[in-house]
């Protein structure tokens, strides 16, 4: 097992920049998730770490060793492909033993290792079956088995649950995380599904258009998004934005939104007059008749313990998550108040978060900061 260090990694395809200046460190034994919309360069980054694609610039260090230009087979890593890439002409046992065969391991030892790994994944009853007839979840387990049987330095997985149906997916998310807790293998996991990312990751990197917008723990990313893109991408429904203008001074603790004063975490940097956005998560909105910030109920979505309420304001629609037992009528005017310590401020032009007391101790976003 080893730590993965990626420095100023860059990849161009002709004139198109697929990955620009990526920097991150995955500590030994960490489960790291790269999250981002389709086409943002997640697979490309992963393939460069694997050695299937050579970077245009930058460095990749595996356990302190510079592997940037090494061949895939010299890196001692394992890769789980989205479509699993199980060899159709071999049965489960042969598939799982294939990486060990490359190392010239004696037959008897391969057999032991494969069986041990199969037990760990609870697929020992499938060992002599052809891979073509396997169900999605089992194919997934065989692919995992083929990856872990060799005990490589780290695992790379490219949307391994992407083709499974929802029910299987929840099960596999759970199994994967459980497996990770048992073997503590350094893992880089790529997905565009934020729920998958939030529920499995120790660390997340949110990517957009070839850039890492933020790198941090799921909690940091959710509570203190570094950019408006991250704030919008993570959370369901996503963070609400209320725009406001003027300038921001160091030490300011209040801003004016739609004529109402709103308390915010203490601002820690100066900004000249510009457009800003106040970011507020749905669950940090309360209905408060005393508040000057007004809106009217537009619709509700009942979720059992909570409900999502759409509120129409002078500045567009907001979504609030409130307890399910609050009775609301369509068109009813309401006042809105926010939990001050949970608010984020963004500079609209660059999209990046304004430094405030709430962000104290949070790693600065890599992208624009």
């Amino acid at each position, binding site marked *: 097992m080893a730590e993965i260090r990626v420095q100023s990694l860059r990849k161009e395809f002709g004139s198109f920049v697929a990955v620009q200046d990526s920097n991150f460190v995955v500590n030994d034994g960490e489960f790291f998730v790269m999250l981002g919309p389709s086409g943002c360069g997640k697979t490309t980054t992963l393939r460069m770490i*694997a*050695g*299937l694609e050579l970077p245009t610039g930058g460095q990749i260090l595996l356990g302190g060793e510079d592997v940037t230009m090494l*061949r*895939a*087979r010299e*890196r001692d*890593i*394992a*890769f789980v*492909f989205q*479509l699993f*890439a199980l*060899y*159709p*002409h071999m049965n489960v046992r042969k598939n799982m033993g*294939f*990486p060990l065969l*490359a*190392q010239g391991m004696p037959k008897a030892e391969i057999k032991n290792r494969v069986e041990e790994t199969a037990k760990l994944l609870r697929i020992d009853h499938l060992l002599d079956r052809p891979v073509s007839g396997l169900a999605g979840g089992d194919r997934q387990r065989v692919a995992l088995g*083929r990856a872990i049987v*060799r005990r490589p330095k780290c695992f790379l997985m490219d949307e391994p649950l992407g083709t499974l149906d929802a029910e299987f997916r929840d099960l596999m998310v759970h199994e994967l995380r459980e497996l990770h807790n048992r073997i503590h293998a350094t893992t880089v996991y790529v997905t565009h599904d934020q729920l998958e990312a939030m529920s499995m990751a120790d660390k997340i990197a949110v990517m957009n258009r070839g850039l890492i917008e933020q790198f941090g723990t799921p909690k940091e990313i959710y509570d203190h998004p570094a950019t408006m893109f991250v704030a919008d991408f993570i959370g369901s429904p996503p963070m609400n934005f209320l725009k406001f203008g003027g300038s921001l001074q160091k030490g300011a603790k209040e801003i004016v939104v739609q004529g109402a004063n709103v308390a915010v975490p203490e601002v820690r940097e100066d900004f000249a007059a510009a457009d800003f956005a106040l970011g507020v998560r749905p669950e940090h909105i309360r209905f408060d008749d005393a508040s000057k910030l007004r809106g009217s109920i537009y619709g509700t979505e009942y979720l059992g313990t909570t409900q999502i309420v759409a509120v129409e304001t002078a500045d567009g629609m907001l979504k609030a998550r409130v307890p399910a037992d609050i009775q609301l009528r369509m068109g009813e005017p309401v006042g809105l108040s926010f939990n001050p310590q949970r608010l984020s401020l963004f500079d609209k032009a660059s999209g990046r978060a304004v430094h405030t007391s709430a962000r104290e101790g949070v790693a600065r976003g890599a992208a624009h900061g």
Partner: protein
Amino acid sequence: MSAAAHSVVEPSVTSKRVAAALVVVYAVISMIPLFWIFATSFKTPPDSIAYPPKVLFTPSIEGYCNLFTTRTRQTPEYINSLPPATSFCDETTRKRNMVIAGPSNFLPRFVNSLVIAFGSTFCAVFLGTLAAYGFSRFKVPLADDLLFFILSTRMMPPIAVAIPIYLMYRELGLSDTALGMILLYTAVNVSLAVWLLKGFIDEIPREYEEAAMIDGYTRLQAFRKVVLPQATTGIAATAIFCLIFAWNEYAFASLLTSGTAQTAPPFIPTIIGEGGQDWPAVAAGTTVFLVPILVFTILLRKQLLRGITFGAVRK
């Protein structure tokens, strides 16, 4: 692969019957010449040229005797002085006042055909597989132009370049050699092999090799252990197309080979009997000539079908 995969409505019983009838009629029409050759090979020389043609006749293997032997005419006195005939061939030959002088050239010509056809098929498929893999997986500079160039070698009938090749082969000492014929057929077939195989290899996801290369194999090992086993269908289909061409090729063979390296196709029509063409022997030669290709085709018929419909059928 069935018709149902393409049309939603199951064809009606009548249309199925009509289709079956058409297929049967077509099969019969194309099989009649083959059947006639097969029948002729078991006729006696007089039966083979009888008019009106004989459909019913007493079978004889005289044609096969004559195919594999050469005979000389002798006086009845000499023939009577010989020890009794030991085989059917001896007997029939003597009845026509002849004795078997030795083996004919058919067997060595047939062996030449086998060596040249299988040799050139192996070379064409081997080179074609490697080239197709290269075109399929790597960024080859000018790949499209190169592929077009390879295809363009098929745009005129190969015989159009017969004279330059004839002169070149004479200069190089390749005339009438098995090596020369193998090279020639390989050159003709390799373009077909590259194009067919590229289609098949394109269909194999790269992830398989990438997985193998990450798991510790070199590209060549990954190619051998992962790509090749999955390309067998395509390779078999390609091989059979190449083999059929090389096996049946007549024009170059008759132009460039005359002796030691002559193949069966130019040899068979030259079988001459007493007083002209020995039709049963020619028919016997043709029948024997058909056997290897028939066996090969039957063994690989599934792959052949896949090769013909290639591109149209996906899993």
